[in-house]
């Protein structure tokens, strides 16, 4: 399980360019910062009010006034800035975040995203996700390809939307997919999987990139 997450996080990291302003969702997306290629530095935005977030605070050296959006104690890097929530979401909604990386319950071939309501379960709230996926220049969904075998990459989302037509890219343990106006394009396939495996794990019909990379 940890391996799969690391594979996904490491592949996502390659999508980030030096100097990008990035907002990482809780969980797997947070691991992306550990896999940045040599020479690539990114600027982490935390929607509760940080530009230039650093690593988690060392045990015993926490500043209780500095937390990330998951309420964990973090540090800030030199050149950081703190701001209020209206300013923070002005930055997000205004298109000043280059990429946001987050998980999903479902994604569909139109780039629709569902990641906040599971019927019959407690609804935790959308937090900042709806603003992030609408505002960020690039939206990367980083997740396991299926949920205990059930499809998550669909023709049409069945769960309530977080936003419509916002997902640019889906990265799973099986490979990399781009959402295009024509549908979902498979651009990379990971070692150990065949095209048939990926399609079988995907409800939406996949288009094959002419430059499909196999690893």
């Amino acid at each position, binding site marked *: 399980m940890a391996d799969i997450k690391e594979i996904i996080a490491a592949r996502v990291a390659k999508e980030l360019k030096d100097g990008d302003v990035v907002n990482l969702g809780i969980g797997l997306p947070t691991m992306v910062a550990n896999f940045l290629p040599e020479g690539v530095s990114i600027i982490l935005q*935390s*929607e*509760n*009010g*940080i530009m230039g977030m650093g690593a988690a605070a060392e045990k015993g050296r926490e*500043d*209780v*006034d*500095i*937390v*990330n*959006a998951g*309420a964990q*104690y973090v540090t800030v890097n030199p050149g950081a800035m*703190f*701001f*209020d*929530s*209206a300013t*923070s*979401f002005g930055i*997000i*909604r205004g298109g000043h975040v280059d990429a946001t990386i987050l998980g999903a319950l479902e994604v569909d071939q139109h780039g629709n995203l569902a990641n906040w309501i599971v019927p019959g379960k*407690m*609804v*935790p*709230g*959308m*937090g*900042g*996700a*709806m*603003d992030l996926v*609408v*505002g960020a220049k690039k939206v990367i969904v980083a997740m396991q390809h299926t949920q205990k075998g059930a499809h998550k990459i669909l023709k049409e989302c069945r769960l*309530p*939307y*977080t*936003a*419509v*037509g916002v997902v640019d890219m889906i990265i799973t343990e099986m490979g990399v997919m781009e959402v295009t106006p024509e549908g979902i394009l498979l651009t990379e396939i990971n070692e150990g999987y065949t095209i048939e495996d990926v399609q079988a794990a995907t409800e939406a019909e996949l288009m094959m990139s002419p430059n499909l990379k196999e690893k």
Partner: protein
Amino acid sequence: MFAGSEIPKVRKGKTMKEKIMTAAEAVAGIQDGATIMVGGFMACGTPEILIDALVDKGVKNLTIICNDAGVPGRGVGKLLSNGQIKTLIASHVGLNPEVAQRMNTEVTEDKLECILVPQGTLAERVRAGGAGLGGFLTPTGVGTIVAEGKQVIHVDGRDYLLEKPLKADFALIRGSVTDRFGNTTYNGTTRTFNPMMAAAANYVIVGACEIVEIGDIDPNNVVTSGIFVDAIVGGEKPWQI
């Protein structure tokens, strides 16, 4: 600060001398059914001493506007546990399991209404309330259940939701450094919703970690003007989450 005579006459809610008071005095005017904004994000930036005073006072049927539900034993979570909240307007309540319990309870008078608002929209609605705007157009929530019942306005090729301002009777603010007039700064990520809420409520109470003299804060660095502040309560502390 003051134009005119050098020694400002004390006047309720405006000049310095009467603003510093105990937490119990500061929340004395809060009655059952009040609408209260509470600053902070997962209780980081929430004035715990003011929450505690509100728990002691025991007022009920409150409408609370806060980013989230805190956690049990911290922030607005304490008001929830004590059965004081009727309606919660927040962006995220998932880290406080009591919210689900209260929403699903069979006991009518304990039942919680929870209104979820996207976090950026919530922040902007509070800002609009303080800034005298009648609303704003946001792309957030278009095509989702958040859009239900809202006007969709098309501007320059894109759809937006018309979102309306939020105001409140009271705001509970956490200041890191507050001068005796109420000018306030916030340390680190305690800022969150505090500055917008201080402008959007009729009566604003600051729970301050440190109270300093007027003039001690560089005018370039003040975040919340003292004109918004009605009451200052000292003794707010750093809290572990």
